[in-house]
């Protein structure tokens, strides 16, 4: 290597060899952390008399009787479905046609509603309205 090149290398490396590792280490020690919130959680509903209970990986369902005799369905969504518009329905046959719509689900949280008639429905259907696909069907009679 000729001497002007050696000089250039020395200059380059004094700058790079010192400044670059310093900047690099600054970047290393300052990788940001996400700021967390404290969010109030809803109490999961537990009925005194649970008429039906099902606990799955992405959701759990509980149907119980209230003191006034009304029937309530509580749906705890733990992980959102990968679908654009999901509704929860009840039916007495395992068919979305004629099923009664209860509520739409989206965010992972607890959804609940009182049921009209006084008996526990045979099927709870989770249905993607846009892709017209049944995502899950729970049979309460087994």
């Amino acid at each position, binding site marked *: *290597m*000729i*001497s*002007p*090149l*050696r000089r*250039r*290398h*020395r200059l*380059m*490396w004094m700058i*790079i*060899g010192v*400044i*670059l*590792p310093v*900047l*690099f280490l*600054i*970047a*290393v020690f*300052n*990788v*940001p952390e996400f700021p967390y919130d404290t969010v109030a959680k809803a109490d999961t509903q537990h009925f005194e008399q649970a008429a039906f209970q099902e606990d799955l990986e992405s959701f759990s369902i509980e149907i119980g009787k209230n003191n006034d005799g009304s029937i309530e369905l509580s749906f705890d969504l733990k992980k959102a479905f990968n679908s654009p518009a999901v509704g929860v329905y009840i039916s007495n046959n395992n068919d979305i046609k004629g099923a009664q719509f209860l509520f739409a689900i989206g965010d992972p949280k607890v959804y609940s509603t009182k049921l009209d008639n006084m008996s526990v429905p045979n099927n709870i259907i989770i249905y993607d309205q846009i892709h017209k696909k049944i995502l899950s069907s729970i049979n309460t009679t087994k």
Partner: protein
Amino acid sequence: MAHQYVAVLWNRQKKLYDLYIFLGIILYLLAFIVLTMILKPNITEEALIIRASGSLSILILHIILIIGPLSRLNTRFLPLLYNRRHLGVTMFLIAFIHGGFSIIQFHALGNVNPLVSIFVSNNEYGDLLNFPFQTLGFFALIILFLMAATSHDFWLTNLGPRFWKAMHMMVYVAYALVILHVALGIAQSEPEPIMLTLLGIGLFTIVILHLMTAFKEVKNDREKSLNQRGYVLVGTVEEIPENKAVTINVNGEKVAIFKYDGKLSAVSNVCRHQNGPLGEGKIVDGCITCPWHGYQYLPHNGCSPPPFTEKVETFDIVLEDNKVYLNPKPYEPGTERSPVVISS
């Protein structure tokens, strides 16, 4: 060496070199894509292209930068040096894919021209940690483009080897920009410090290799002093290997003294092609052959054998007893000086 410029002077070694470059790239991309499909299947195609091409081009850049120092430390790496240019141009093309897709992905289809958006979307130029990392990448790509565009010998000759090499030293600036582009970019978004760890290992390797080379070179840089007749003592005849040379540093530049066929000749150590170290070469078919790209010069007059026209400076040698003395004053390139015969 040619007088007619063609895109590439193909030969078998270059073809093999390029074949291995191609195989290495295919290996990396296949491994990357297959592993991603298995381990991280939710990726989008654009993100896959951007990450694969980005990581591959940085890896190749590291390989390119270690070839120089490794070749100085151990001559078995010289074949990697021979066609390093092709590696450089390839690296630029892959980096260009990364840059191009990133610009489209992150800046196109918005309310501002994408090329403007690179510079204004994040305009915290005064902050270190929030510095717009994409701007750093953009300028690194510009430097790499300039280097790739002038990589051909046409530019080497017309710009002159010294200016050309000075310009190509910008690779170190590009390297620094690339390191910071990653450190202040993707590494800030990834919780696992993998990017920074790999980059740190790469940076460390390059720095260490360069330092080792610097220490080795410094030992050879010591200039010899002149005796009362104005000559420099090179050493004894036996110290010079047959068909090879020893080099000494005089007046800021090195001179190579070759021993061949019972004779001694001295020429400038600096090859006219890319300033390679002729003194680390060998006499092949009666010609001094440069270890970098095989350029040749006749030892008694410093001229390249016809039809080539490169010439190096020649020097006078005096042999007294067994000792070799060099007159440090160079003759014009191509001046014939009779070799000194070694009497047995």
